């Protein structure tokens, strides 16, 4: 599950920034860059979230599908 580390981090950062960022109506360079950074972060967060879910799901399913040991 170590591989999902960056996914956790991205989701966390986005939730925090998403709560504090207000989208302006008119965009100068600073606003554009802020929107760009925020939006890219959100794209990463959404896809990282899917990564996280797939990783957890794959791990769980593989646990259940492991061949049972026996005599």
């Amino acid at each position, binding site marked *: 599950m170590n591989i999902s580390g960056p996914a956790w981090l991205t989701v966390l950062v986005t939730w925090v920034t998403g709560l504090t960022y207000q989208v302006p109506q008119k*965009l100068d360079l600073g606003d554009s*860059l802020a929107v760009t950074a925020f939006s890219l972060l959100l794209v990463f967060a959404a896809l990282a979230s899917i990564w996280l879910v797939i990783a957890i799901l794959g791990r769980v399913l593989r646990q259940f599908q492991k061949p049972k040991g026996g005599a």
Partner: protein
Amino acid sequence: MFTHALERIVQDSGFATLDWRSAIMLVVAGILIYFAIAKKFEPLLLLPIAFGILLANLPFSTMGSYDEGGLFYYLYMGVKLGIYPSLIFMGVGAMTDFGPLISRPSSLMLGAAAQFGIFFAFTVANLLGFTPQEASSIGIIGGADGPTAIFTTARLAPHLLGPIAIAAYSYMALIPMIQPPIMRALTTKKEREVVMTMPRQVSKLERILFPIIVTVFVVLLLPSTAPLIGMLMLGNLFRESGVVERLSDTAQNALMNIVTIFLGLTVGATAKADTFLAVETLQVIALGLVAFAFGTVGGVLLGKLMYVLTKGKVNPLIGSAGVSAVPMAARVSQIEGQKANPGNFLLMHAMGPNVAGVIGSAVAAGILIALFGS
């Protein structure tokens, strides 16, 4: 009497009112028809788009998408209301194998990184004076996903539909020419030679759960992506469930073909001379290229980072496939990989980021619509 009738017919004909602007549009339509037929540049969409332009620019034809009462006026409702792109996404979902992505979910990050081009072009477009809505629609060309570009533009800047659709599909066809120089410039030969290990087998249960989980998760996170992601994943569930083969077949063949005809024709018919022949159009086309190029840059650079983090197990060339454009971008990764190492086979590995790019561009579109939609 006869002369008078003849004179009237001539006066009422399109020849009498055909101005130079409409004539230029007819030439543009002719060039696009040539590219579609002779060069096979995305012919499935470019041909109906080009013929739509042709029809819309014939005087008195009332075949423009905005000509109230005309045929395309009604068919255009499918674009305006976001119906056609969503139905096409259902077909794309029914055709897509998400197996490579499920087996290596870190590919999703490459699909996210390749959306950098969208936001880079968005920033430049803002600086050039476009409104945030127009800049968002222009940027989305970089998602290399025609239906997503049309879906976003129809909502945010419908007056730019013609140039944006033409730019998006033209550049998608030109991916084998646009991407390789960037990929080679950003990677070393050693990096391009990396042979990746085969991904694990994905179980049927994982394949079935994937579209359901992605739909619930992404739509909860970004409700505005529901039409695109929801239909994409519905199509994929048709495919993976294995119990509705007829629906899957219809979604990826008959329905998709019908919708493609309507979409292409009506998008083409938005490009009338008075709106298309403007400096703005040239800017859109130039910015579209910037978006494509920087999308490739973003994907390859993250691929390089993954190469370093995995101690050389990931070939950075697969990053460029994150721009979507399934499966052409993955094929470009494969070709470039084989040029560096003839024994290399990157196609399967590149399909992961490639299908992640479809999800990524839909998510990027959802964000822009959420931010700037009315």
